[in-house]
């Protein structure tokens, strides 16, 4: 998928910005705080309905305005040319449109423009708690399988319903048990769908992770992971089998869950445990290994998307080159030159790329962001 151009109104620090991008690598340089990241964050917002740089929509609106607007012209393999826009206003929320028809549900949007982001925040993938890894996994799968997001939202709804029941006071224990039963059954069925999908995707993902880690590290350590879910699931178990395991687990823990008044088991508690040559990364990994692992996870996502989807993903690299040693920069630059999809890089200046990525070609373009913010192409030479 190619983002041919984008237009921003009141998005973060961009009051009115319009940029025509190149189909290959787009380098965006400028001093700190100029709005480089905000520009590629706008692309991310259009793809995923959220910012990768800030958690609340509140901070996405430019100070002093009541809403924002993003519009991009794209071209892909199935829809050859189309417009995608998002308008947000305080109070009314956000509305996405493809050409001029509104998208009713979030699951209608996610996956239209597949996207992969590299950012300094990636270190959280290996450093922080399981929630970070689940959200990585969910963002990845929902871009490949449309029904996954719908299933996930339904699963979360069932948990909320069930937790409400579990926390109800003044319900006789035998009646509570009867009332819980339909929700237990729904939880097991819906949870099994999520687990099955995560298992299948991860089984394919493993190979891409190995390749990416080998490429970026250059040394022979073998990365792997263990998908930890409700219980050990036998190889080849299908959705019905998983639902059965889950239902039994819920039944066995009835007393525990009523006492704690919440749903304690299920894919909302899943985790991925990372290993290097069989050693647990969290316990034994060095800072450098953590960084490489996180980078490899994202590169593996890129490779998985490129292999699976009709449209190549849009690749966003936010401020990641400053921290890498020259050898890694070279590996990444080679990868970008070989990647036939579109990429966007933000960096303080062009120095790391000199002699590695040419920006005087028809495929690549270099932009600088200056006060205003003003985004303008830098002519070659």
């Amino acid at each position, binding site marked *: 998928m190619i983002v041919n151009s984008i237009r921003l109104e009141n998005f973060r620090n961009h009051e009115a910005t319009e940029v025509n991008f190149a189909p290959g690598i787009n380098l965006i340089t400028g001093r700190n705080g100029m709005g480089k990241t905000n520009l590629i964050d706008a692309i991310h917002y259009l793809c995923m309905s959220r910012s990768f740089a800030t958690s609340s929509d509140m901070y996405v609106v430019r100070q002093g305005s009541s809403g924002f607007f993003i519009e991009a012209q794209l071209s892909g393999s199935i829809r050859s040319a189309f417009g995608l826009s998002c308008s947000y206003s305080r109070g009314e929320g956000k509305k996405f449109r493809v050409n001029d028809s509104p998208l009713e549900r979030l699951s209608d949007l996610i996956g239209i423009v597949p996207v992969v982001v590299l950012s300094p925040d990636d270190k959280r993938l290996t450093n922080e708690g399981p929630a970070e890894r689940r959200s990585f996994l969910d963002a990845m799968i929902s871009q490949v399988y449309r*029904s996954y997001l719908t*299933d996930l939202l339904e699963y979360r709804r069932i948990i909320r319903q069930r937790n409400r029941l579990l926390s109800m006071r003044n319900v006789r224990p035998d009646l509570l048990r009867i*009332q819980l039963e339909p929700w237990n*059954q729904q939880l097991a069925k819906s949870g099994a769908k999520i687990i099955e999908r995560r298992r299948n995707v991860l089984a394919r993902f493993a190979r891409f992770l190995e390749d990416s880690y080998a490429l970026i590290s250059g040394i022979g350590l073998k990365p792997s992971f263990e998908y930890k879910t409700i219980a050990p699931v036998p190889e080849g178990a299908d959705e019905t089998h998983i639902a059965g395991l889950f239902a039994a687990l819920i039944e066995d823990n009835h007393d525990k869950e009523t006492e704690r008044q919440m749903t304690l088991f299920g894919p909302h508690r899943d985790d991925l445990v990372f290993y290097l040559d069989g050693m647990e990364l969290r316990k034994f990994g060095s800072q450098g290994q953590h960084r490489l692992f996180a980078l490899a996870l994202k590169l593996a996502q890129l490779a998985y998307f490129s292999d699976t989807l009709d449209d190549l993903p849009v690749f966003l690299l936010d401020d990641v080159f400053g921290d890498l040693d020259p050898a890694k920069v070279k590996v990444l630059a080679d990868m970008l030159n070989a990647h036939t999809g579109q990429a966007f890089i933000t960096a303080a200046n062009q120095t790391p790329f000199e002699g590695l990525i040419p920006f005087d070609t028809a495929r690549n373009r270099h932009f600088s962001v200056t006060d205003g913010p003003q985004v303008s192409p830098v002519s070659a030479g």
Partner: protein
Amino acid sequence: MHLTSETLERAVEHLSKLPGVGRKSAQRLAMHLVKQEKDGVLQLAQALIDLKEKIRYCSNCFTITDNDPCPICRSAKRQRSVLCVVEDSRDVYVIEKTNEFKGGYHVLGGVISPLDDVGPDDIRIKELIARVNSSSEPVTEVILALNPDAEGEATSFYIHKMLSPFGVKVTRIAHGIPMGTELEFIDEATLSKAFIGRNAF
């Protein structure tokens, strides 16, 4: 902004409480009524009053009706042994439009949803069990026609469970592909359910 007439303001205020009507639409509706012939407006007012004074729920199936029992329950042409369970009266009208179903209805008046403080006792499940259990009009089949979302599914499951001691056949309407749409526009969940529920050609 306040309007130049308090009477108008009061009407706008009431109209804007209706679902799907904002303040602007309410103003447009009110202004429209001001310009109408008096007769038409009085008829509208009477129709609104009748909604509260004449409408009741059928004591048998709990659908909205003027006369209890409702025309469907009174009809000699309907099969009394088959009951279709729906969430509210609107669903009855939708199914009636198809002319496919010749049995009776049972309107639950909601679905189980703990988040909205609706439990099994807050909707007409007990009444359904009583109908299935009654000896005067034996029921052989209960068709569940609730929405295929988490709450609808949980309610269906609960009813199925509650009816199991009575040996009545419990079925549910099929999930499938809407007529007039193309396969490529169907979401995966619907399509996979349509596959599971496929029929012999």
